[in-house]
């Protein structure tokens, strides 16, 4: 039946759309549907994981010089059809913080830095200067960072990009209407946490006030210098986020910029019909000699919105008409078709797969008195079966059993780290758990398990509860509607002992994983420290490691802290590393899964 009477049906799809928000904000645990478990674990993914342990290099001027190395076999011309689920709510870079918008932004926006793929398989990257001549220079351990703009960089309207535009781009981040983007840079410049940074420049640059030279200086038209009170060695990563791409000072229309931005990338917006479609065409003012990251192979991208995963998968599988040259930047192969696609070598050859940035974890609510005993927490960790979780998401092609909380796409990941033996035995170890519970004298204790009422949540929570019961817990499952799930579990006085959440890194450093989730000074309603852990050693290590300027050393130290958390604190039990499979029409070339984008790479595609 059509009509308003069936409104309630909408709820079934609610978690689907919410996942689009996941990259930036709270990652929902219901991003793909359950399905078969026939897929085999791809060796390539594991090799990929290994390669990811090496931290990403910060490139110099030579690394940052365009043009990008050509994609083998690439041809110019043709139109690419793009099927997208959600319309892009934001085109203003400062408001972009979700994966699908960030993927599209790769084509139209450029920032001071960016990730250059150094291999054709999407696994190897380095951070290079994008609009800047290099990834940034610091002489005082990350307190002062200097960037120089390249010669010949222009906006799509033909005006040159100057340091005044960069200043405008930074200062407008403080204006009240910018609510959606990342806030790392603002907090670092203001030397504060939370939203206190807005006090530094309450109206942004719009009422004649500007950031003082002691914070941001632009001594000439080409030079930009950031000054921080504390060292922030991760800045080159940070500035590569779409949220920090450059905005035109002259063309800054404030709120209206969100629908009609002045772009800088190889493509410009020919038309954007919110909720319907978008057309990107070549930007003649983009000079490939200034861009070491992007290509401009296809003539245009025709993007159509409202295409659910099932629809886009079926259309691309059918491979006829315009869909022959079709892709989806962010849709995955839906769980219903996944096993069929992977079983057929011809169809499989049109797919790419890889990791999403998210790591699933079962939080143990540290504010509960019953959870104060580490033996109880260890018993939960050993007893919790992970296999139901993997099965609920469609098997090993969609979910990989996790070891630590640092994911395979983040520097420092240790594939050998498996604190609770889950990689070897994903079914859990109820015998060991029971022993721990006996030692604690808590056999039969009540354990409230809040679970999300998505298909997946229903499925895995039942089996997980059974596994915990085997170890001697009296598990009480409590359903939480998916629409309000994170509202409920992020409340400090929630009454759940355990509940699941997922977290994605903003850049390949654990700085964007461990501090937001495990800093005991960040416990607040709505904040991301869901387990409410407050460990003095963890807190002081966060401060110490955040200031390490050498990314290699920092990555190793973060991994040590990951190990400390999971062996000495045990406030979470890692469940899975989220993965996905994407498909393209047979006429699409250069179809590669990019680990940093967390999806196919729109910059490399061409029409065969």
């Amino acid at each position, binding site marked *: 039946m059509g009509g308003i009477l069936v409104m309630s049906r909408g709820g079934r799809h609610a978690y689907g759309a919410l996942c689009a928000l996941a990259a930036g904000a709270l990652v929902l645990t219901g991003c793909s549907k359950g399905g078969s478990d026939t897929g085999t674990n791809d060796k390539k993914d594991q090799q990929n994981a290994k390669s990811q342990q090496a931290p990403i290099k910060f490139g110099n001027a030579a690394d940052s010089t365009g043009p990008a190395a050509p994609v083998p076999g690439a041809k110019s011309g043709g139109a690419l059809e793009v099927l997208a689920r959600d319309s892009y709510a934001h085109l203003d870079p400062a408001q972009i913080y979700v994966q699908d918008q960030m993927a599209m932004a790769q084509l139209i926006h450029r920032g001071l830095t960016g990730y250059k793929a150094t291999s054709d398989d999407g696994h190897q990257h380095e951070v290079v200067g994008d609009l800047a001549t290099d990834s940034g220079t610091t002489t005082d351990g990350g307190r002062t960072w200097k960037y120089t703009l390249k010669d010949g960089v222009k906006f799509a309207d033909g005006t040159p990009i100057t340091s005044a535009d960069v200043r405008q781009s930074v200062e407008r981040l403080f204006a009240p209407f910018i609510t959606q983007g990342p806030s790392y840079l603002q907090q670092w410049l203001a030397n504060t946490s939370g939203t206190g940074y807005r006090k530094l420049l309450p109206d942004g640059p719009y009422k004649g006030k500007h950031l003082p030279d002691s914070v941001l200086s632009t001594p000439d038209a080409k030079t930009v210098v950031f000054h921080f009170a504390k060292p922030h060695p991760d800045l080159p990563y940070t500035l590569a986020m779409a949220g920090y791409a450059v905005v035109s000072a002259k063309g800054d229309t404030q709120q209206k910029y969100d629908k009609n931005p002045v772009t800088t990338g190889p493509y410009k917006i020919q038309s954007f019909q919110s909720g319907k479609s978008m057309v990107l065409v070549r930007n003649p003012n983009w000079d490939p000699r200034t861009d070491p990251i992007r290509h401009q192979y296809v003539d245009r991208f025709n993007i159509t919105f409202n295409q659910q995963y099932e629809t886009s998968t079926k259309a691309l599988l*059918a491979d006829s008409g315009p869909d022959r040259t079709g892709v989806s930047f962010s849709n995955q192969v839906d769980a219903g078709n996944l096993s069929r696609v992977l079983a057929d070598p011809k169809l499989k050859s049109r797919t790419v797969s890889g990791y999403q940035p998210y790591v699933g974890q079962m939080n143990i609510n540290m504010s509960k008195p019953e959870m104060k005993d580490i033996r109880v927490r260890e018993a939960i960790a050993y007893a919790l079966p992970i296999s139901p979780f993997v099965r609920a998401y469609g098997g090993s092609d969609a979910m990989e059993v996790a070891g630590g909380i640092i994911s395979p796409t983040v520097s420092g990941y240790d594939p050998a780290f498996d604190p609770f033996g889950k990689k070897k035995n994903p079914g859990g170890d109820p015998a060991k758990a029971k022993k721990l519970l006996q030692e604690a004298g808590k056999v039969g204790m009540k354990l409230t398990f809040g679970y999300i009422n998505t298909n997946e949540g229903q499925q895995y929570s039942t089996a997980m509860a059974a596994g915990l019961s085997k170890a001697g817990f009296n598990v009480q499952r409590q359903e939480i509607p998916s629409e309000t799930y994170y509202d409920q579990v992020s409340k400090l006085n929630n009454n759940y002992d355990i509940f699941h959440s997922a977290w994605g890194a903003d850049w390949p450093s654990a700085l964007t994983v461990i501090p937001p989730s495990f800093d005991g000074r960040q416990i607040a309603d709505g904040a991301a420290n869901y387990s409410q852990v407050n460990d003095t050693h963890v807190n002081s290590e966060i401060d110490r490691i955040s200031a390490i300027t050498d990314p290699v050393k920092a990555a190793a130290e973060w991994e040590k802290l990951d190990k400390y958390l999971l062996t000495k604190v045990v406030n979470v039990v890692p469940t899975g590393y989220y993965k996905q499979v994407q498909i393209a029409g047979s006429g699409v070339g250069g179809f590669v899964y990019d680990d940093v984008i967390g999806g196919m790479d729109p910059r490399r595609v061409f029409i065969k």
Partner: protein
Amino acid sequence: MLRFLVRRIIGAVVILFLLSIVAFLLFFGVPRDPALLMCGKTCNPDSIANIHHVLGLDKPITEQYWIFLHNLVLGSGQFAQGPCPAPCFGYSYHTDEQVWGTLMDRLPTTVSLTLGAAACFLLVGLGTGLLAAWRRGSLVDKTATAGAMVVSALQIYFLGPLALAVLVYQTHWFDKPAYTPITQNPVSWFGGLVIPWVVLSTIFAAQYTRMARSSMIEQLQEEHVRTARAKGMSRAYVFFRYAWRGSLIPIVTIFGIDLGSLFGGAIITEYTFGLPGLGNLAVQAVNFSDLPLLLGVMLFSASMILLFNIIVDAAYAFIDPRVRLS
């Protein structure tokens, strides 16, 4: 007639007013905060408070409701995004677009879908129903009744993907469903909507078949029909001239309600076929806790239902001379 219309319109406004209050209370009653969706990774009470402030959610509910009513009737120049003439539902939390503009932008899709489907299901449904009643007890009747029974048990979320798989992806007989404005290209408009029309109307047609048949049979048993036949009028004349008009009353009632709710957005059909209409907009509004959009879609859909109810009631007078409006 005029008095009838005035009375009904006042009634409709009161219903809409009450509905908006209920919607407001429900929205704030659910433990779900739109700010949390926008809050980002380093979310904390400060940043939530800032978003509340930007969205105006930090004001008391009664004040927010008053502002909503005020803007709806008089418009507003207070929005940072720009002016908002009446009827102003404000700007969407999620997309920052004017809600009324978005509604008007999506309406043509929904209207195209509804009118095409309604034409299909009325023609097929009433035709089959009348035929079944005319040949009551025959094989035609039994087939039509049984067929209608089976088809009305189907659902769009089953029939839609099936039609797509067979008619579009396997046989390539039809275009992939898409919406092109009729003013831009009438051929693509038609081609892109054929499958949604067929799927949506199949299920409605089955119901109209059953309804038309039973209503017709009931009418044929009425005494005035028997009298007419007894007076020597031909079966066909009585059937179409007497019984048919009487049988339309319940059908028009249901049709009015169906049409009204379809104009408010055929949620599942639009979602299944990826059509950018009001139904898809409703789903989006719920998913993103988008209060202004939610109120906009809801009140617009409700107005459609109320409007068509009034039209139906007015239409009775024309169909059935026994009905007097005042």
